[in-house]
Each structure stands twice: as C-alpha cells, then as structure tokens.
C-alpha cells in the first residue's frame, strides 16, 4: 500500500451492487481494490480475480506434512538404534508400527504449518489499518476500499455513489454530501 495514496471506501448492503461497482472500477483502471464481506462469497472472488493467484497456504501444508513424516521416521528409527533392545523377537527397526507415528507426526506438523501459513499469508502481509475498517462488515454490510491518488478521489467517489453505495468514507472519515 503506497503511503501517500488516498483511501476511499464505499459501504453496500447488496452484493450484486457491490460486484457491479468492482467491475466498473476495474474497467476504469483502478486495481488497488479490497472488498470486505461478512462471509466468503464466490461472486466477489470472481469479480476480483483472486482465484487467478492461488493461495500460497498449500505450500505450507505440503512442506509441513513432508517435514512431519520425515521427523516421525527419523525419530523412531534413530531412537531405536540409540538403545537397541529386542522386543518380542522383532527387528530393532520395525517399520510397520513406526508408520503410525510417522502418520501422526505428518498430520500434526502439517496441520500446524497450515495454521502458520494462514497467519503469514492472510494477516501479516496485507494488514488493513483499523481506521480503514468498518465494524458493520462483520454484521450485514459489504465494503469496497479503493486506494488511489488524491486527484482521482472524486472520480472514484462518483463511481461508488452511482453504483449504489450507501455511505462513502475517505481515509476512514465519513463523507456527508
């Protein structure tokens, strides 16, 4: 987010109006758009093309699972070799029972790294400042936040208003007109 750019937000009650506004904004050349919604919505995803850039959480999941399986395998094998004691006439390194430990470690570390992936990808990287958020977005309202230069503010505001926005906020301050 550019430091000296301006932030203008339109608040909506209806998803279809919001989707139309996003399309209109994008066709007018505004690409720094963030949409807020109380629940995930496919129409919003589609109009923003967020699906085109797949989430990187999957790499965390995959690497975590592989790492977990390797940790489980190394742990069981090396600790058995460290104190080699024969139980029930079975080999010192008896892989079939170890697979259970490997599986559990895979799920454990894979799951935890998925959580880490969510934290890193969703929050820490693109955090929205609190003044650019409206508390109604977790209730029943939807919002579009556009970042643009100061001279484009009016154009964006007109688009938002024309397309059915009920309230406009500029840099977090309600704009009455």
């Amino acid at each position, binding site marked *: 987010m550019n430091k000296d750019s301006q932030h203008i937000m339109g608040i909506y009650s209806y998803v*279809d109006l919001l989707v139309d506004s996003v399309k209109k904004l994008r066709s007018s050349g505004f690409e720094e758009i963030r949409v807020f919604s109380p629940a995930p919505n496919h129409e919003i995803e589609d109009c923003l093309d967020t699906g085109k850039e797949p989430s990187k959480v999957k790499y965390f999941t995959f690497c975590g699972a592989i790492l977990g399986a390797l940790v489980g395998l190394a742990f069981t094998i090396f600790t058995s070799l460290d104190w080699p004691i024969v139980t029930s006439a079975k080999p010192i390194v008896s892989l079939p029972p170890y697979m259970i430990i490997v599986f559990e470690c895979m799920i454990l570390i894979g799951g935890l790294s998925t959580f880490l992936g969510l934290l890193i990808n969703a929050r820490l990287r693109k955090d929205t400042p609190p003044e650019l958020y409206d508390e109604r977005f977790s209730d029943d309202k939807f919002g579009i936040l556009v970042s643009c230069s100061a001279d484009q503010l009016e154009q964006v505001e007109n688009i938002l208003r024309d397309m059915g926005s009920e309230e406009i906020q500029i840099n977090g301050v309600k704009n009455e007109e």
Partner: protein
Amino acid sequence: MSDFNSLTASQKYSHLNTTVMNMLTKPSWGWWTIFAIDMLFLAFGIYCFIYQVYTGLGVAGYSHPVLWGVYITNFVFWVGIAHSGTLISAVLFLFRARFRMSIYRIAEAMTVFAVATAGLFPIIHLGRPWNFYWLLPYPNQRGLWVNFDSPLLWDVFAVSTYATISSVFFFIGMIPDIAAIRDTVVGKVKKTFYSVASLGWKGSSWEWGHYTRAYFYFACFATPLVISVHSVVSWDFAMANTPGWHTTIFPPYFVAGAIFSGLAMVITLCIPLRSIFKLEDYITMENFNGMSKMIILTSSIVFYAYLTEFFIAWYSGNKYEYDQFLYRANGDYALFYWIMMVCNGIVPHFLWWKKIRENLKILFIISLLINIGMWFERFNIIVISLAKEFEPGSWGLYKPSWVELGITVGSFAWFFMFFLIFVRTLPALSIAEIKEILPVPKKKQEGSTDE
C-alpha cells in the same frame, strides 16, 4: 421478534449476529445454579482423585485379573465422544453437507472438551500419576527411549495429535466469528480479549481467500486423523491376545462406535441449548434429521460388528473366543451386555420413523440411551474380556469402587464445566458459515419491497 422467514436477507444477517451476541450476555441465575451444581460434582471428583493418590490405587476397585476398569472405560468413551465433532466439522465439510453448518461449532467444542477429559484418565489410572511424562519420548540421563512398538505409545501420539489439531481447527473456525463479536461487544476487557483472539481479522476478500483454502486443507488432514485415532485406541486391545479383544474388526468397529456415540452426545447437547437460547431459526429439523440418519448408519455398523464378533467366535472354532462371548451374553455381566445390545443396536432404529426423529423429547431420550449403551460397550469389552481369560485359575470379578464412580461423575462435571463456560464466552453458532447458506443480500431479489 418478527418471524425469521419474513426477514430480508440483510436482516437475517443481522439477526444471526444478534442471536449469537445474546448468548454472550451476562449469565442468568439459572446458568449460575447449573454451574454451581456442576462445580460440586467436580469438587467431589477431585476429592476422590486426591484420596486415591494419597491412599494408593487400592481404593480403586481394579485388581488382578481385571487391571483395566472404569478409568480406561472412561478414556475410550470420551475419546469416542470426541470423534463426531471432527467428523461433523471436517468430513461433512468435505461432503458439503448443509446440515452441519449450524451445529458444527457445538460439535467441535464438544470434541475439544471431550479430548481434554479423555486425556485425564490414563493419568488417573497410573499408580504414580506424577510420573506420567515418562510416556513422552524425551532425552533423559539414562539414554532410554520409549518403545515405539507398543500400542499404548501410539495412543500417546494419536491422542495428543488429535487434541492439538482439533483445538487449532476449533480456533481457526472461530476467527471470523470472534471478530464479529469484537465489533459489537462493549467493555474494555471484553473488547481487548476478543480483539486479541480475532488475530486482527477484518474479513477482506484477501483474508477470505487464504482462510477458505487453509480451512479446506485442515479438513483434509482432520478426516484421516479421525479414522486413525480411534483405530489406534482399538489397537490398545486388538494387539493383545486376550479373547474378545484380538480381532481385526476392531478398528472399523471402534471408529463407527465413536462417531455413533459422539453424534448422540451432540444431540444431547443441542436440544437443551436450542430451547434455552431460542435457536430454533438456526438449529432446525434439518440438523436433527441429518444427525439421526448418521446415527442409523453408524448404529447399523456397530450392531453388525456385534453380530460378526459372535459369528466369528463360533465359526473360528477358537474355544476361548467362543466361551468369552457366551460368557458376555449370559455370564456375570450379562445385564450390561444386554443394555449395550438394546441401547446401541435396537433403540436407534426407531429413528427410521420421521415422526420419532422430529419429536425432540423422544430424540433426546434416545440420545441419552445411546450414550449409556456406548459407555457399557466399552465397559463390556474391557472388563468382561479381562475377567475370564484363558486360565480358569486366574478368573475373577471386578466391581467399580465409589472412588472410581466418583471420578467418573467428576469427569462429566469437568466436561460440562468447559461447555458451560464455552456457551457464554465464545460463538456457539458459526456466524460466517451460516451466512454462507443464508440467502445473500441482493438488490435484484428484493425488488421494490425494500427502499
């Protein structure tokens, strides 16, 4: 309040937030009364445990030959209860079953609390409970490591993984809902608590994109985990050569039984919660129908397993196995065996009738009977098999002592304590997920009726 169905889509969105917020208001005297009674039972359970530690394991009823008694029964029972929560939140999520939406948070909370209860019992069961950490593989002075060939150690890994993953899953699911509470709650302490717990969630499309993916991967991990954990628990028994335990049917039989008992417990919890907090608009007959049908399915699997055990005991020609099952059905513990058969095999099949499924009083009673039946199932498997093993000279009977029963009652109080706190502090309905199945607010649909 006006009829839910006549509300517009955005009013329904708000209605949901208000409903959840209303659950988090200051507890009434009714809640405090229930909580206080619960605390009394818990205190008695803690007293029993302290008495047992102070006096020695002799005060618990288990002795040779039955060295696994009510404590291990409780362990298996609570781990089983824990299973349906993840089933509802993960497996039914992958199957896109709509009826999971409004009950899955309750089921997940139940999972986490049930694992927290189950985890106590292997420790309570120990003669020197303060040495429980010897189960964990850690570098020590003598260079000793744990025995990875032992099913009891698999259990340590499986149950602790399950506790961790189900807690994280529970928390991830709640993040957007905690943010919703944060946005409306008043009071500085509460606001700070929910702000920290929401991890700064704002509901931007960017966040939702990563969130839905992460949730999906989590569900993919949790699904095989559900199946693995109770399979591992069943191997605690099936890996031993004791008659009645040493069968290959145990893992699927235990997994089905776990889901069966957990679903019954979800119904037991949902029915009072629904009427106390007036959640009829969200927890509907669709939810109860869905759960009832799952109960019919899992009950049939469990009942089939009961019959298969008998058949194989006869067909295998193994005298010890055969005698064990005859003893179960008409020996010293026959009453418990038949309670199990009736409660788990016959009672659930009344749910084939829609009228019974939709009569919540009867459904509630059926769910309680299933819980009782499933507790006795674990008791029967553990105790009856140990009471009559191979050598007639080492046969013996087991009767739970008051200490064991006190701790058992205390464990229920412990579980309900968490649940009572949960319904007053965290969103018991999933706001974001229910909004996914509610109609999306659209100008076109509302036409001229609005504005």
